[in-house]
């Protein structure tokens, strides 16, 4: 017998629904997940021009509640949580004592007596890290706070320029939400916590619903003419084009918010006051510049470079690719990686080593494909 426990692959609430639609299922983050239905490129392009429904029920939905939950969260996250308004959400990072990134997440301040019943914060964390995140929060949050794992909730993402048309038909009122705000709604009588947010760079929504109603709601949404179901494969190519990092690849404990180029997640007040894990080092990296930086690259030719490929500047290895693939929208290979700071300037010519060959690459601004969020006042 081995000491290593065998990885148990679980199923998600929509497992049967995906299979009925012809999805190819693969293990991901401990779950059977749909990697694709019709093909990654077709699904990717459909999302960019119309709307795609993604099942992201593997992600962890958590509730932190109790008095001073905002201050308690600020001890673990570098974001401005205290001044976060009701129904507003922010991207933030769970940090270790050295300032390394344990996970990235979305945090929303819930109304006093909202869907989940108490003054509280709703957190969405990555599926592969949720067990560790829960352990970390249990260990470091004050005992008087309550941490709930909302594991009876499914999570759907409806993304694309026509997402609002499709969802507003089922749920009038969602059109009033702007990017990074959320609220309690009903879809066909089912309570839904809906935010205007996502992971594709497009306008869109994330929809938290009870798992027992997930099939019915997913069917209703995909019955809208704008909407097709989209798998994890296109989710990855869409987020790469949008320049959004993927935890476990582009972010891990060897990276901090300054290296990762996530300055917006560490606002001025937090940089001045500190008080989050690893603050001294992170603040120094922001003020003096990080020794290595996350960059985007566009490759010459058609050959993609993958995670792990070496990045060279002249004859010197300066870094490593952390995500790479072929951009269906731009029809060129694109990549993300970390390089030593002097090699990170926009426009710099670098080379990427793939199977003994060197591919030409140029440091490019991210996002590769412009974001099309619907912001306040727009």
């Amino acid at each position: 017998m081995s000491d290593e426990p065998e990885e148990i692959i679980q199923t998600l609430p929509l497992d049967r629904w995906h299979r009925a639609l012809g999805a190819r299922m693969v293990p991901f983050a401990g779950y059977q997940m749909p990697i694709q239905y019709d093909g990654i490129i077709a699904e990717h392009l459909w999302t960019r021009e119309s709307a795609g429904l993604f099942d992201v029920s593997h992600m962890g939905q958590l509730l932190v509640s109790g008095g001073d939950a905002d201050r308690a969260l600020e001890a673990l996250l570098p974001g401005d949580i205290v001044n976060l308004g009701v129904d507003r959400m922010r991207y933030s990072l769970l940090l270790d004592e050295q300032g390394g990134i344990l996970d990235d997440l979305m945090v929303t301040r819930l109304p006093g007596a909202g869907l989940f019943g108490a003054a509280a914060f709703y957190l969405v964390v990555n599926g592969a890290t949720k067990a560790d995140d829960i352990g970390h929060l249990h260990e470091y949050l004050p005992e008087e706070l309550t941490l709930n794992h909302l594991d009876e909730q499914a999570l759907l993402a409806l993304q694309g320029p026509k997402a609002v048309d499709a969802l507003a038909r089922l749920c009038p009122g969602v059109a009033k939400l702007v990017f990074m705000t959320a609220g309690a709604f009903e879809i066909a009588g089912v309570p839904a916590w809906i935010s205007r947010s996502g992971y594709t760079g497009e306008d869109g929504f994330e929809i938290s619903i009870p798992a027992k109603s997930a099939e019915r709601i997913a069917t209703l949404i995909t019955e809208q003419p704008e909407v097709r179901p989209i798998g994890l494969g296109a989710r990855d190519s869409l987020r790469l084009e949008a320049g959004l990092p993927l935890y476990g690849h582009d972010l891990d404990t060897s990276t901090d918010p300054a290296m990762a180029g996530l300055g917006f997640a560490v606002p001025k007040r937090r940089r001045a006051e500190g008080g989050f894990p690893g603050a001294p080092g992170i603040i120094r990296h922001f003020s003096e510049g990080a020794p290595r930086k996350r960059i985007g690259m566009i490759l010459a030719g058609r050959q993609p470079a993958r995670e792990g490929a070496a990045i060279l500047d002249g004859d010197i290895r300066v870094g490593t690719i952390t995500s790479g693939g072929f951009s269906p929208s731009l029809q060129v290979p694109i990549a993300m990686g970390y390089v030593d700071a002097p090699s990170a300037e926009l426009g710099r010519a670098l080379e990427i080593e793939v199977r003994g060959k060197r591919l030409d690459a140029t440091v490019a601004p991210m996002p590769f494909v412009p974001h099309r969020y619907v912001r306040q006042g727009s």
Partner: protein
Amino acid sequence: MTTYYTDEHEWISVEGGTATVGITDYAQAQLGDIVFVELPAPGSNVTKGGEAAVVESVKAASDVFAPISGTVSEVNGALEEDPALVNSAPETDGWFFKLSVADAAELEGLMNAAEYKTFCDGL
């Protein structure tokens, strides 16, 4: 012309001393949208079971193995401009390379079409 199949989902069509190699329809369906094919250099030698080409889908790179040993005589230049030929016509226009057969005895042990179909049905 006789076509043989490997358990790694390559096909090889042999006519006289020359063989054409590609990946099967089953393989292209598993890989999904193909965006790049790295072909061996003409004149290079490939070894039975050794890496001969790499096929890149949107998501990942996969090795293509030589079904038999030989010297690469020609590669399919059309794949450079249109790698999606591997998806649309994997066993015809989407061929990868031709080679001069080093040892025809290496073809023994490969599957015929019926055997390969049974093999795929069991996967």
